[in-house]
């Protein structure tokens, strides 16, 4: 049965099936995740030769591994002999070569075949051990931007920097905020399972007007907590990052949203740069290394979540990257990586981890209400109560930008922008975002 995808996406609304139909999910794996540049990991996760880190790109289990020449390779985690995953899930060191557990075939860290047991058994057979197909297959294309490694499963397509377009500056600022200009993954990875389609999570990233409604339980708890403190107490960081969701709709409306080609975008920062001792010490460290003018230029780039569609969401001012991994049409895994700014005081990194623990972790007080909303959307969409999902707010009012468009904070430009990209990957027209 063919699916008429063209009938499911319109410029200002989408049909519920794009979130609920398992067949469409499989097509997304082929066409969206099979073509786009996807975030794999950061080079600091594999600092030494033989270090590896496994992940999945769409449906494909892959391994990022550092070769003897220093290059970071991304290989399909599959032995060319019988198909076993060569390295176990997770991260570690393989030594100088990869060795399959099943029959002991070994490979260099660029995937090329090194040795097989009983080599003589293959003489005069149709299997030519010198042929490329007996090496571990490399992912079609790999490229890195400031240490952030991306891969594409497609042989052809845009260069990474063209693909990133206007959100390359978010990855730049992510690193520029380090006094030494570099970041490294540190502090462990948290993983959250969501019972919803992956697109619902992405669309919520720049959905400003849900915050005051959905997050009432956590912003109200934070406000009450602060009100119970002695008058004149400076507002603790723990309260600031939770009670901000209680801002009125006018606050969110004033924020600028930017959407770029290929579904990317970012939201203007919602936190005023703080003036507490931890923040001031960090700013001083940045100024000492980069000079005051440059430091000021770096810190002026104040953004909340950035969307790198369809694989990750960096948060530049709290040094997090959330990686979005669709598991099935109604299940999504989100992995949260924290980064250390090289050259910054240790207290800065500890604050990064506070944000991780309080806002993004499975035990977040903020996120359960998001997850509840996503899940009720997922379950509600399965009903016959209606067929379409609206993205009308602010339609026709976007301002053009080079390579994209901007809108005020309460516009539904971001989901329209993402669906324009989605349609393009899926091979249909929406009539574009505007």
């Amino acid at each position: 049965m063919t699916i008429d995808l063209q009938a499911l996406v319109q410029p200002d609304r989408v049909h519920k099936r794009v979130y609920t139909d398992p067949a469409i999910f499989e097509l997304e794996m082929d066409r969206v995740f099979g073509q786009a540049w996807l975030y794999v990991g950061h080079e600091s996760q594999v600092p030494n030769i033989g270090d590896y880190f496994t992940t999945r790109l769409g449906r494909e289990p892959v391994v990022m591994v550092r070769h003897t020449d220093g290059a970071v390779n991304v290989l399909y985690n599959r032995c060319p002999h019988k198909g076993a995953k060569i390295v176990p899930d997770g991260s570690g060191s393989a030594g100088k070569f990869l060795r399959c557990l099943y029959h002991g075939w070994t490979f260099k860290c660029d995937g090329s075949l090194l040795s097989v047991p009983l080599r003589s058994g293959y003489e005069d057979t149709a299997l030519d051990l010198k042929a490329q197909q007996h090496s571990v297959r490399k992912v079609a294309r790999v490229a890195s931007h400031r240490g952030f490694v991306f891969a594409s499963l497609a042989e052809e397509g845009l260069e990474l920097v063209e693909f990133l377009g206007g959100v390359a500056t978010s990855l730049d600022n992510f690193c520029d905020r380090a006094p030494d200009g570099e970041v490294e993954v540190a502090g462990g990875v948290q993983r959250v399972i969501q019972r919803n389609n992956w697109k619902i999570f992405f669309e919520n990233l720049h959905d400003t007007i849900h915050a005051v409604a959905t997050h009432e339980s956590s912003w109200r708890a934070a406000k009450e907590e602060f009100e119970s403190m002695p008058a004149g107490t400076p507002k603790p960081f723990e309260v600031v990052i939770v009670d901000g969701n209680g801002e009125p709709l006018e606050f969110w409306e004033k924020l600028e949203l930017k959407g770029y080609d290929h579904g990317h975008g970012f939201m203007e920062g919602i936190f005023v740069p703080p003036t507490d001792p931890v923040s001031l010490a960090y700013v001083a460290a940045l100024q000492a290394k980069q000079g005051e003018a440059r430091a000021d230029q770096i810190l002026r780039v104040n953004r909340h979540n950035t969307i790198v569609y369809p694989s990750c969401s960096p948060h530049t001012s709290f040094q997090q990257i959330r990686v979005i991994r669709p598991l099935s049409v109604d299940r999504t895994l989100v992995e949260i990586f924290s980064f250390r700014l090289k050259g910054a005081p240790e207290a800065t990194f500890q604050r990064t981890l506070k944000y991780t623990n309080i806002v993004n972790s499975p035990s977040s007080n903020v996120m359960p209400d998001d997850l509840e909303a996503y899940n009720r959307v997922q379950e509600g969409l399965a009903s016959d109560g209606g067929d379409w999902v609206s993205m009308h707010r602010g339609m026709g009012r976007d301002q053009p930008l080079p390579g994209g468009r901007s809108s005020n904070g309460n516009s539904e430009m971001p989901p329209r922008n993402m669906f324009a990209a989605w349609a393009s990957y899926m091979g249909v027209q929406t009539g574009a975002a505007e």
Partner: protein
Amino acid sequence: MNFNDWQEQQDITKFLFNEARLLDEHRWDEWLRLFTPDGLYWVPLVHGQTDYLNHASLFCEDALLRSMRARRLEQARAYSQQPPTRTVHVLGNISLESRTEAGCVVRSTFHLVEWRKTEQRAFGGSVLHTLRREGAEWRIEMKRVELVNCDAPHEALQVFM
């Protein structure tokens, strides 16, 4: 290391049983009062984690964060508590790990069954309670919950374990 006598063992066992019961009955305020003012509730993210400042955790909550969580759970519009999480703790293997100047460290094992909405979840692991004697009462300086599956992907963890 052994308890001094049956009385001490009984005393600490009762304290742990009561603590678990307060959680299972959602008596958050009473549970919060079991902690010393600078006490910590900590659920490490990885096995053998020794540092909660420079490494992410599943829970890492001082008095402020514990209180914020308790307040949130009781909000009328805590949508993710419609219906509320229900739990039951089963404790075992209570033993004395070490003695401190003001109290002791007690290790126990637990099985936690949690239900909300559609599915039952099970957690298990060990708990290290660092207890401080205050007059006739015990207070918690640190509750460290070592989950068997701490490093697994989790759905939302809303209530204290």
